[in-house]
């Protein structure tokens, strides 16, 4: 192997390592808050530190790589196509959830539903950006589409641990969203799908299946085993 080939191979390897390290770093920030910092009821400013650092890292990473908002899925590009691709699975999932709620008589309006609903669009867009606009894109730089889809869905489920009903739902959601993002990357369409599904889960899933949307240490704190 020539010196040039060796250097190129080493560069590729380090680039793959950087992509992986970025994804791990962002996921660790979320897990750090959910598991290590949440048990200590200290200032919310400190709890917001790691997610803020993760957000800054993501922005810096895009800047270093010359990625524009349009590329990530923040523009109008692929909006209709993404909506079209997402409509089927989203409506099917909503119908299934409503069906379950009808059969189990569990249709209900949870506490602070409207307040939560008003925050949901921004929260959903942020989650979709982190999941797809950042993590999926980084994984996709060195993995095949199928592997990236599986890992992205797995990571999305992981950050919802140990709320296992929510983990299952987020894993399925992660699979569909990553699959569609591969074909039509538009984060606004994904946020709409996310909001509709989350709102349906909130009102339709029986409390004995999904008692709360809490994750991490707080889930353990408020549930008896």
């Amino acid at each position, binding site marked *: 192997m020539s010196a040039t080939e060796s250097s190129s191979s080493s560069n590729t390897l380090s*680039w793959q390592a950087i992509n992986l*390290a970025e994804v791990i770093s962002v996921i660790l920030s979320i897990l750090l808050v959910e598991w290590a910092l949440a048990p*200590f009821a200290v200032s919310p400013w400190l709890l917001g530190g790691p997610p803020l*650092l993760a957000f800054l890292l993501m922005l*810096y990473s895009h800047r*270093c790589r010359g990625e524009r908002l349009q590329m990530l899925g923040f523009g109008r590009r*692929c909006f209709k196509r993404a909506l079209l691709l997402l409509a089927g699975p989203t409506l099917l999932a909503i119908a299934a959830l409503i069906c379950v709620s009808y059969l189990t008589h569990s249709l209900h309006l949870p506490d602070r539903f409207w307040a939560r609903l008003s925050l949901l669009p921004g929260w959903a867009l942020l989650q979709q950006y982190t999941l797809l606009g950042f993590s999926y894109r980084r994984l*996709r730089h060195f993995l095949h589409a199928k592997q990236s889809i599986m890992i992205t869905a797995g990571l999305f489920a992981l950050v919802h641990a140990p709320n296992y009903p929510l983990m299952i739902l987020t894993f399925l959601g992660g699979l569909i969203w990553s699959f569609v993002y591969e*074909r039509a990357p538009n984060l606004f369409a994904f946020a709409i799908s996310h909001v509709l599904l989350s709102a349906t889960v909130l009102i339709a899933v029986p409390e004995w299946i999904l008692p709360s949307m809490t994750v991490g240490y707080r889930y353990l704190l408020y549930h008896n085993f």
Partner: protein
Amino acid sequence: MVTGALVDEVVEEPAPETVARLVRALLIKSLLEILILCLVLGIAGFKYFNPTIRGEITQADAVSVRGWVANPLAPHDPIQLELVIDGRLTAVVIAREGQAEPAVSALLRPHPFVFSFQRLPAGTHSVQVYAVQTTPGRTLSLVPITRRSQTFTLNPDR
């Protein structure tokens, strides 16, 4: 159907300086997160594990236990104390601000206490006094006023 073309469009070999900048950013982020973790653990440790209530058992005999207790976070508030002898709750008193032994600084606002009880049988006994932590912002808990329980032996002839 377009497959993999949209997401994959910016994959290209990076310049070495881009890699270096990203590595630096990752290291700085990790370092700051470790600092935040240390800060949170430090604050939580001080908040939850620093008892704040402190005191001393100055005398323990067959019929009484004396000492003082102080709570710097609420120096004038009465402190509820529970006496545990040989692992059993024996008495409860409320200690109020007063004059303790001269050796105790008045700045601590000591609350002297005396527990009187029926004569203990001969043998070795362990005594500990617990304060009920009711300071606002703190978890309601029982806090031992000294690190170790005090042990003393009563002879049969006394």
